[in-house]
């Protein structure tokens, strides 16, 4: 990509969040500052409860009340924004709509003509590899296919930034690897700026240009790891030596945080 050296598409400036609960304040995210370039693929990895989903919800606009600022193309945004699209961890395909009508959904809400939205939706279904399934309902499709519907639906708004919150968490390992390759291919094809939340280290290494390791609560960026594997990537690289080194390096940093998280969890449950 030639235009890598542009101004950042997404800029987080001292973004932080405290939840007030009846049991006192909980600092979920310590100030995070981050620039993401056009076409870049960023992963945020961290233990459960590190605030990575909170951070994602802030960028996606679902949480509007936070400290600091979020800028898209240099313009400060707050709340849901059409330049930022989100894919969720849970099943989110509308079960009462066919694959095609799931993808047309946001365009329908925005009042785009039927002809245009169907055409665009067919292109997107092709992009995610669901040709021929456009008239099927989600219940007739596999979990991986349903998640691809959700991705296509989010892309229907042509967001500048694609946020994915553990989109493969509910899938089995093999489906997850194949879907990772698919996401990479889409990201390359559209030069799509992407931010992924995951707790799968291999997945983060396979997909990302940069991996951000978050600490356990309160969440802050503990370290940034540049993934210097060559492009185009694919799941076939998993056996490589460099791949293994990167996974090991990230685990080194993550281990401590994960065990803190586990201890906290056991303390709360026990």
């Amino acid at each position, binding site marked *: 990509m030639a235009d890598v050296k542009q101004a950042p598409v997404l800029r987080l400036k001292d973004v932080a969040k405290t939840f007030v609960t009846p049991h006192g304040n909980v600092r979920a995210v310590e100030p995070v500052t981050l620039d993401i370039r056009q076409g870049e693929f960023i992963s945020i990895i961290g233990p459960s409860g590190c605030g990575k989903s909170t951070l994602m919800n802030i960028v996606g606009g679902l949480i509007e009340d936070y400290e600091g600022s979020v800028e898209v193309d240099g313009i400060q945004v707050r709340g849901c924004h*059409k330049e930022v699209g*989100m894919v*969720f961890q849970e099943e*989110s395909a509308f*079960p009462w709509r066919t694959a095609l009508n799931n993808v047309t*959904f946001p365009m329908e809400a925005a009042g785009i003509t039927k002809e245009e939205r169907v055409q665009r939706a067919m292109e997107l279904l092709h992009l995610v590899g669901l040709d021929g399934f456009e008239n099927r309902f989600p*219940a007739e499709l596999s979990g991986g296919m349903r998640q691809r519907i959700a991705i296509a639906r989010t892309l229907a708004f042509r967001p500048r930034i694609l946020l994915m919150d553990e989109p493969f968490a509910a899938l089995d390992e093999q489906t997850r690897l194949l879907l990772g390759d698919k996401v990479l291919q889409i990201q390359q094809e559209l030069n799509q700026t992407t931010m992924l939340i995951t707790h799968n280290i291999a997945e983060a290494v396979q997909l990302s240009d940069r991996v951000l390791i978050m600490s356990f609560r309160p969440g802050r960026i503990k370290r940034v790891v540049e993934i210097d594997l060559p492009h185009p990537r694919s799941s076939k690289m998993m056996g490589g030596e460099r791949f293994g080194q990167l996974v090991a390096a990230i685990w080194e940093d993550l281990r401590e945080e994960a065990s803190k998280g586990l201890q906290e969890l056991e303390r709360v449950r026990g």
Partner: protein
Amino acid sequence: MARTMASTRLTLPPLLIRFLVIAGLVGLWEIASGSGWINAFTAPAPSSVWKGFEKIVAEGGLGEAMAITFATALMSAAIGAVFGIASGYILHIWKAAGEAYTSWLAALASAPLVLLYPLFLVIFGRNMWTIVAMGALGCTPPIALKAKEGLDGVKPVLLNVGRTFNLTPKQQFWMIMFPASLPSIFTGIRIGLLFAIINVVGVEFLVNVGGLGQLIANLGDRFDYPQMYAGIFFVILVSVAFFWITEKLEKWLLSNT
């Protein structure tokens, strides 16, 4: 030998066995009644019940009675649906009210409300409105409960999808909340319709006004047993058929969700 016989018997399809059981019972009854084992006047043989059926179809106004009963039940269910869905919606959006009143509503749904009919009889008089009111009273609580359950049960992630696409509150309701809770609302209406039919037929029978219930009550009062039995079996058959159809309809409508 006994084993082979057992296994042949076991391979008969359930539907055929069910049919054979019914045919056997009817045959047994015919023989018992014909040979005088049971009183042929109070328990007439199936053959004379069939003649009674032909008679009430031809001159007893069976078709008309059925039309009245169904029209009354549908009207009650429509009233119940309007009030039920509206109250379910209010209890869903007003959380404190939902917390305060949902358990009351559940108690009403399982309370024997039909026993209040003497009150409605003195309010509305001995006419169709008493019956409509009793039907509506019976089906409103279950419809309200199911509507609230459906709206409460809309997955938060679906609402978040709507928010990320900048849906207006109106779009959020009509494009996400409503279709998502439709299965539950439909179940509520189906159950409500059944409650309405049961109440309508029951009150028709008790106050001698209206359709099928009144028909049976009148035949009983006239000691016309073949026709009365025919009427009773007809009511049972019709409600079974109605239940079966709505059940299949629901399954078909919801097959994709």
